[in-house]
């Protein structure tokens, strides 16, 4: 609640002023004010002024409907603006007072209190305002237009302070009455806050108790009354705001102009499910698609510039996404480099620290066991791969072969898609009733099928390569990615052909329209003998000739693609996972072989594939959102539903991947893919924005030569001229080239620096490794025991069982010898080489004079624990733990 904070800040300001005000209440300004208030003919003034206040109150509740009434109120205000700002304030207060009076019984004493309150409140008025006021009073007693202007500015300031409805604060003169009411509202709120503060600080006032009580009561009543009103007003205001927003943002409703109406010949089938399902009919002419938006430069009271904001949002999405992706990548890079991949103690840490001792739930424990096992397996495979050494020539040959095969697959799938899209364009020229469902949805089906079939194929081919699993996974992902992207781009190129054809077509239609319009005007002049003020042709919006609107077509293609993708994904899960799981589970009772362990088994949950799907989906959204804003909504629905659906599928019918390699380590790999997708989906959109002319009769940029003309227009018309100058300089190639050069140099420099750091890092790591080895060697004959260790050893609960040090020393070698047979004698682990190894280790160790390592000789009380453990130095925590028993008594 930022506003609340502001309020607090304001009241804080007030606190400072209030004390001053208390003491300077005797100043002539105040007395003058009071005199003015008294001198005025009260009843008349009140009667007159109560109205504006009322109308203000009401206008807040019914913002738009009550325009005439407000105007009346505004007129009143204009009259009153002739009086000084000062008076306006006083009056407003009184208006509030009168309102209150209506509710309460009328008596003179209250009148008095009203006055007094006014004084007090004047005392607590905002400091800055007050000073301004005083100046003003002194300067221009007449208080004419300038004062009014000042008042208006004041109000706007107030509004900014409040931070409320900031969009409306930018409104111009024609929303004057609106801003007035806003200002009033803001002031009322301020007053309430003031009162609250008064209540809070009343105790500190040097007043009589009676006065205090009175003041308190009044203030409380005021707060109660107006706070309630303001609070209640909010709901309605919100509603009004919503209504206004829909009006403002959407401009004219459906059916008002041609682009927002279904053409006559389509109207019969516009509501058919089959049509709607392909996003024709009403869908095509809805807010989902580009074509619906009007080119009107600004809409509504707030002067909402729809075309400009459409373009800026479209481009801003890319900018924002880029920023987010890159920031995430940078953060990941930072996190990844903090020595977690040190590798010095991988297995140790895995073994000793992987159990989470807070786990108190069997299911979580199961998961933890599974994940620990997986991570061990992962490390083991890593280790084994390090040791592997095979026929390098065969390996190379196989890898080249695999890559060739995969390239063939990719090329084939690309060609297939191009072919299918071309075919679908042929079909599109025919009558749609003749086409079968298959022919209509060929593109989507083929793309989805390729997405289904190719990845497993790649996986099979990748078996040839014999890479380390993690590398293999990356290759696999990269290939699937290339497949998707290739498909998408082929699709795009085919789409471009279509768009170009449409553009040709559009030119003709445009000429036709212009011709028809000219004809109409000519006829009109002919019949009515007027050359000016010809009314526009009276044609129903449904009958207007219209162009193909390629933008909407592109948008529809993308939405269709997304929807078919959703369908395929969901169906795959339903059939490939669920049905398979059901069959495996229940047919297993009456089958020749073990279905669960054998061939079909349960489906594995393919994490990387799913992540890739998400990335790819996001790419389609990025590409399509400019031409189909509704796609974003579709995607949100998809993501929400698929989260729950897939969660269910994973829990119910999937088994974990056999060789899971944690995605976390390849985090930036996925992010890198995302960045690539973002870039690749950004290109075609920006290309179309920059080069293709928008359709002449649909979308927010209709009538312009280029889409970005909107920005030019805004710069020329709405910004001050010097801004236009700045922009023209900034867009000068002479300035852009050096900037780009500078950036390239900066990148080069930063890259060099990061390389240097990397080298330094590697150096340090190597040094650390060396040091560790050295230490390892040196420790063999060093008797080091720090104090902490000694104390800790005292804590041994079974210390009493251990024989005294001298005995232990002699016993040690024997102990070791007796243990080594035990290790080697273990069943299974007793491989011959292993046993020898252990023996060797032991003998080595025994050769070293290692006796004093852990047990320093000397008298140490072998007695009971508590006496010794009460005050061991290393940490209070320990003392606390041990010192437990005594207070119990």
């Amino acid at each position: 609640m930022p506003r609340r904070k502001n309020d607090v800040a304001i009241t804080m300001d007030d606190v400072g002023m209030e004390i001053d005000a208390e003491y300077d209440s005797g100043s002539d300004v105040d007395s003058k004010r009071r005199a003015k208030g008294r001198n005025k003919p009260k009843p008349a003034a009140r009667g007159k002024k109560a109205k504006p206040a009322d109308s203000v109150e009401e206008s807040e509740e019914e913002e738009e409907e009550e325009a005439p009434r407000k105007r009346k109120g505004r007129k009143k205000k204009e009259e009153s603006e002739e009086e000084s700002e000062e008076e306006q304030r006083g009056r407003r207060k009184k208006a509030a007072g009168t309102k209150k009076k209506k509710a309460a019984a009328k008596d003179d004493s209250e009148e008095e209190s009203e006055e007094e309150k006014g004084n007090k409140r004047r005392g607590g008025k905002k400091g800055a305002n007050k000073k301004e006021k005083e100046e003003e009073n002194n300067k221009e007693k007449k208080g004419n237009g300038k004062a009014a202007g000042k008042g208006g500015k004041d109000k706007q300031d107030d509004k900014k302070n409040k931070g409320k409805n900031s969009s409306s604060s930018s409104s111009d003169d024609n929303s004057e009455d609106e801003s007035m009411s806003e200002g009033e509202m803001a002031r009322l709120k301020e007053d309430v806050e003031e009162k609250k503060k008064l209540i809070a600080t009343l105790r500190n006032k040097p007043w009589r108790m009676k006065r205090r009580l009175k003041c308190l009561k009044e203030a409380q009543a005021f707060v109660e009354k107006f706070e309630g009103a303001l609070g209640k007003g909010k709901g309605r205001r919100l509603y009004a705001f919503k209504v206004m927003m829909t009006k403002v943002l959407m401009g004219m409703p459906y059916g008002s102009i041609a682009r927002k109406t279904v053409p006559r010949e389509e109207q019969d089938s516009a509501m058919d499910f089959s049509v709607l399902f392909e996003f024709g009919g009403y869908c095509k002419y809805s807010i989902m698609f580009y074509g619906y938006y009007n080119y009107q430069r600004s809409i509504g009271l707030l002067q909402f510039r729809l075309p400009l904001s459409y373009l800026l949002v479209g481009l801003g999405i890319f900018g924002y996404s880029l920023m987010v992706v890159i920031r995430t990548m940078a953060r990941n890079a930072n996190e990844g480099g903090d020595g977690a991949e040190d590798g010095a103690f991988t297995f140790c840490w895995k073994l000793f620290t992987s159990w989470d001792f807070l786990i108190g739930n069997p299911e979580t424990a199961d998961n933890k066991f599974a994940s620990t096992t997986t991570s061990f397996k992962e490390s083991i495979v890593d280790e084994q791969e390090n040791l592997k050494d095979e026929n390098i020539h065969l390996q190379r040959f196989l890898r080249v072969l695999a890559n060739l095969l995969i390239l063939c697959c990719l090329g084939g799938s690309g060609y297939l898609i191009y072919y299918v899209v071309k075919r679908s364009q042929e079909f599109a020229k025919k009558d749609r009733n003749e086409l079968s469902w298959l022919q209509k949805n060929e593109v989507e089906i083929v793309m989805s099928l390729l997405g289904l079939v190719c990845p497993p194929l790649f996986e099979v081919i990748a078996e040839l390569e014999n890479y380390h699993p993690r590398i293999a996974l990356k290759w696999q992902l990269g290939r699937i990615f290339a497949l998707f992207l290739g498909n998408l781009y082929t699709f795009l190129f085919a789409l471009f052909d279509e768009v170009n054809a449409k553009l040709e077509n559009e030119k003709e239609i445009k000429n036709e329209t212009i011709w028809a319009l000219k004809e109409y005007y000519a006829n009109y002049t002919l019949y009515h003998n007027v050359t000016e003020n010809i009314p526009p042709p009276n044609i129903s919006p449904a009958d207007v000739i219209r162009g193909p609107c390629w933008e909407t077509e592109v948008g529809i293609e993308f939405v269709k693609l997304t929807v078919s993708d959703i369908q395929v994904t969901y169906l795959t899960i339903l059939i490939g996972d669920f049905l398979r799981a059901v069959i495996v589970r229940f047919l297993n009772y009456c089958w020749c072989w073990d279905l669960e362990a054998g061939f079909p088994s349960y489906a594995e949950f393919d994490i990387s594939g799913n992540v890739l799907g998400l990335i790819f989906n996001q790419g389609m959204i990025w590409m399509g959102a400019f031409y189909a804003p509704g796609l974003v909504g579709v995607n949100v629905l998809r993501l929400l539903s698929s989260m729950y659906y897939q969660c269910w599928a994973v829990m119910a019918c999937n088994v974990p991947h056999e060789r899971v390699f944690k995605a976390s380590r390849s985090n930036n790999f996925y992010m890198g893919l995302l960045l690539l997708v973002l870039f690749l989906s950004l290109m075609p959109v920006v290309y179309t924005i920059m080069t293709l002319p928008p359709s002449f009769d649909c979308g927010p940029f209709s009538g312009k030569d280029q889409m970005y003309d909107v920005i030019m227009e805004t710069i020329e018309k709405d910004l001050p001229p010097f801004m236009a100058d700045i922009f023209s300089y900034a867009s000068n190639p002479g300035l852009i080239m050096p900037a780009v050069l500078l950036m390239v140099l900066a990148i080069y420099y930063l890259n060099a620096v990061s390389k240097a750091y990397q080298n330094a890092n590697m150096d340090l790591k190597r040094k650390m490794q060396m040091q560790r080895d050295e230490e390892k060697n040196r420790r063999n004959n060093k008797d080091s025991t720090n104090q902490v260790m000694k104390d800790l050893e005292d804590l041994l609960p079974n210390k009493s069982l251990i024989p005294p040090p001298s005995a232990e020393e002699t016993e040690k070698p024997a102990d070791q010898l007796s243990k080594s047979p035990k290790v080697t004698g273990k069943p299974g682990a007793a491989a011959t080489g292993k046993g020898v190894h252990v023996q060797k280790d032991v003998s080595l160790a025994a050769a070293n004079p290692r006796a004093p390592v852990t047990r320093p000789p000397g008298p140490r009380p072998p007695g009971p624990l508590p006496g010794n453990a009460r005050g061991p130095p290393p940490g209070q925590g320990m003392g606390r733990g041990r010192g437990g028993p005594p207070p119990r008594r």
Partner: protein
Amino acid sequence: MGNKQTIFTSQQLDAYQVRLFHRYRDLAPQLVPLDYTNQPEVRLPYELIGSMPELKDNPFRQRIAEVFSEDGEGNMTLDDFLDMFSVLSEMAPRDLKAYYAFKIYDFNNDDFICKSDLEKTLNKLTRNELTEDEVRMVCEKVIDEADLDNDGRLSLEDFQHMIVRAPDFLR
């Protein structure tokens, strides 16, 4: 080392102990008297300790109970119980934790973690899902990594040296 060492006031300590005492007593109300003034010799059997929700799913619960119990069998007095909780609490100093972790992993109580201990630990941690070869390999790697004095087993010092560098040794 970055772990906080807060100092308890005696009141807080009392409250802490009282709470734990109730936990202890709830395990076997019929065994544990409410009155502890004359220090009765009460031990709760391991079966009860091991069934506590905090330990129920822990693969090392038996070891934990054994290490903290005075008799080494997992049967705990109230003092042992309090000890266990204070060490397992998140505010216990790191050294202490490392020490007790060492004790827990040292299955055969010889003050060294040798290969058999490692094998046991690993099998408990993965529920025997790794093959013999894999287990052996992991154990070799562990010894190779952490054994600073080349005696083929981990002393407390080795263990501490290794464990304090672990990123998630917090428990």
